């Protein structure tokens, strides 16, 4: 088993699933000969041919629409949106069409497909290559939303998403694409269930629920806090819809304090759902208000390094928030 970073894990998941199931196919802009702008599909076209790894025209609505057509015909398309920021031209296809196929046909049809998209900032991507739009998709019944943050999770969850009978929006934190490497299990052993969170750091003083790149930032913040003897339990949700409420409730009942950390702009982010739900369910256990630590309400992060830094959460900012919560 070789060590793999997150983008290699994605590629490995695609490769294994395409070998396992001839119905699995990949489509999107530049996914073919180039292997994707982040190399997530590198070499797949050489291996599986121009049909199964198909370079589409530059038109996201039709990428989603064509994927839907393939899914309706019992293929298992994995469509790539080059950046999550560019999934909006496909919003109607995703929300009005794909998400509702099963419901509107009263179960006669289904739409098993995956839409992959790199998400989040911190790579000088500026306003249009840095957005974290998960909240949009998490509000849509009929969709599942996955956002892994380690190579093993990315591989295991992408394999599960491809096998899932329902449409899955699969967001990949691009800041972590070439981050830490891990040895990855292969084949069936790699599979991970959707909808299950993971406690990435046990702790007794407060619970920090997060996902995506913020997992790493929160881990670093927790390390800072441990110097102050504040012991943070960190939960990485991994799947946002459906999310693992039980694991979260157990932790908050134990610690009595909850911070939700997310990279999207604060207002209306998915962290609001997490905070609202757990503030209600854990009311009797809470020793302090549920705190949200999120990015500022600006239309996405600027290109300039100084402004990008001002926008992004980092270990210090998160540690500040956690410290305030611990001291409440």
């Amino acid at each position, binding site marked *: 088993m070789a060590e793999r970073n997150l983008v290699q894990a994605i590629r490995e998941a695609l490769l294994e699933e395409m070998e396992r199931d001839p119905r699995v196919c990949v489509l999107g802009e530049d996914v073919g000969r180039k292997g994707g702008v982040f190399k997530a599909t590198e070499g797949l076209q050489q291996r599986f041919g121009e049909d199964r790894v198909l370079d589409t025209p530059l038109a996201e609505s039709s990428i989603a629409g064509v994927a839907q057509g393939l899914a309706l015909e019992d293929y298992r398309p994995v469509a790539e949106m080059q950046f999550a920021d560019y999934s909006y031209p496909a919003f109607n296809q995703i929300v009005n069409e794909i998400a509702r196929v099963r419901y509107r046909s*009263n179960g006669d049809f289904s739409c098993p497909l995956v839409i992959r998209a790199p998400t989040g900032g911190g790579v000088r991507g500026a306003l249009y290559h840095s957005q974290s739009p998960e909240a949009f998709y998490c509000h849509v019944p009929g969709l599942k939303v996955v956002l892994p943050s380690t190579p093993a999770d990315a591989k295991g969850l992408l394999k599960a998403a491809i096998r899932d009978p329902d449409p899955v929006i699969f967001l990949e934190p691009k800041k972590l694409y070439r981050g830490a490497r891990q040895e990855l299990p292969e084949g069936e052993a790699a599979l991970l269930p959707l909808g299950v969170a993971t406690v990435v750091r046990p702790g007794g003083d407060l619970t920090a629920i997060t996902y995506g790149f913020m997992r790493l930032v929160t881990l670093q913040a927790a390390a800072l806090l441990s110097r102050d003897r504040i012991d943070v339990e960190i939960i990485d949700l991994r799947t946002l819809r459906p999310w693992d409420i039980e694991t979260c409730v157990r932790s908050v009942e134990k610690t009595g304090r909850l911070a939700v950390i997310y990279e999207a702009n604060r207002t209306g982010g998915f962290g609001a759902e997490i905070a609202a739900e757990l503030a209600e369910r854990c009311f009797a256990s809470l020793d302090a208000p549920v705190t949200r630590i999120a990015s500022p309400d600006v239309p996405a992060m600027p290109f300039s390094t100084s402004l990008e830094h001002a926008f992004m959460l980092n270990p210090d900012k998160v540690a500040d928030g956690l410290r305030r919560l611990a001291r409440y």
Partner: protein
Amino acid sequence: MPTDDRSLTPERVLDAYRTVLRARALDDRRFVLNRAGKLAFIISPRGHEVAQVAAITALEPGRDRFCLYYRNFAAALACGFTPEELMLSAFARASDPSSGGRQTPGNFGSRRRGVIIGSSTVGPQIPKAAGIGLALKWRGEGGLCFVSFGEGATSQGDFHEGMNFAAIHRCPVIFFCENNHWAISVPQRLQVAGPGVAERAGAYGIPGVRVSGDDFFEVYRVVAQAASRARAGEGPTLIEADVLRLQSHSTDDDQRAYRDADELAAEAARDPIPRMRDALIDRGWLTPEGDRRVGEEVSREVERATEAAEAAPDPDPASLARHVYADG
């Protein structure tokens, strides 16, 4: 494989004629029920019936796929929906085969008949059909996908994206535009720049054909020709059927408010059904007496269908949250 006029036996044409009459009689009955307060919402195919039935007659329900739009009431009958089934959906009964009463009538779907579940949204079925066409091409069994829409839908970006994709990949798709020259209250001159819809095919390097939608034999011929092309791997065709909208857009609309009274009267006099009847009588395939008999049979069918549907049970409120996901 019906590829030209010759396979059009008198039996098949009389069958199609009966389907046209059925559509008209059912629709008339729906309006009576609507005025009686029993049906909430109708979109009438009045004026489109002959074109719709002719098109489907040239294809192979069972083998082909059909992405219909809300005005395709007559096409749905031609695809095999029974009068009772369409009445069940008009009454939004639990046993409505398209959606179990979940969608407004007009969103047809039936997996076993190859009728892909539609939605009320104008346009998204077009790239979806391109994707279905791609799947059928990969499968290589000669099936094709028929997708229909109004001229208003051709203004959507999805029209362009679907045409472009299908043309690039030579997908076996028939794009069938029922141009009734109105999109609710918007006339063609404010909707479609340029000479017309058929001419748009040139932009994609595929054939574009305009046909008079009240001529059963002509519509049959151009659709059969497009089907031969599609099945032979020669790619998609765009057909523009010139039709009349002899009713208001829907029961929520009154076209007298925005259309010229003389024009409406002139169009009413050009109802395509008498024209089809006369053509059949001219050919000696139908007698006035036979016509009367078919009419009576159809009336009885409509009666029975209405009674059965009216008596059928509503969906169980407890089923509201079923089929959001596979496991629900």
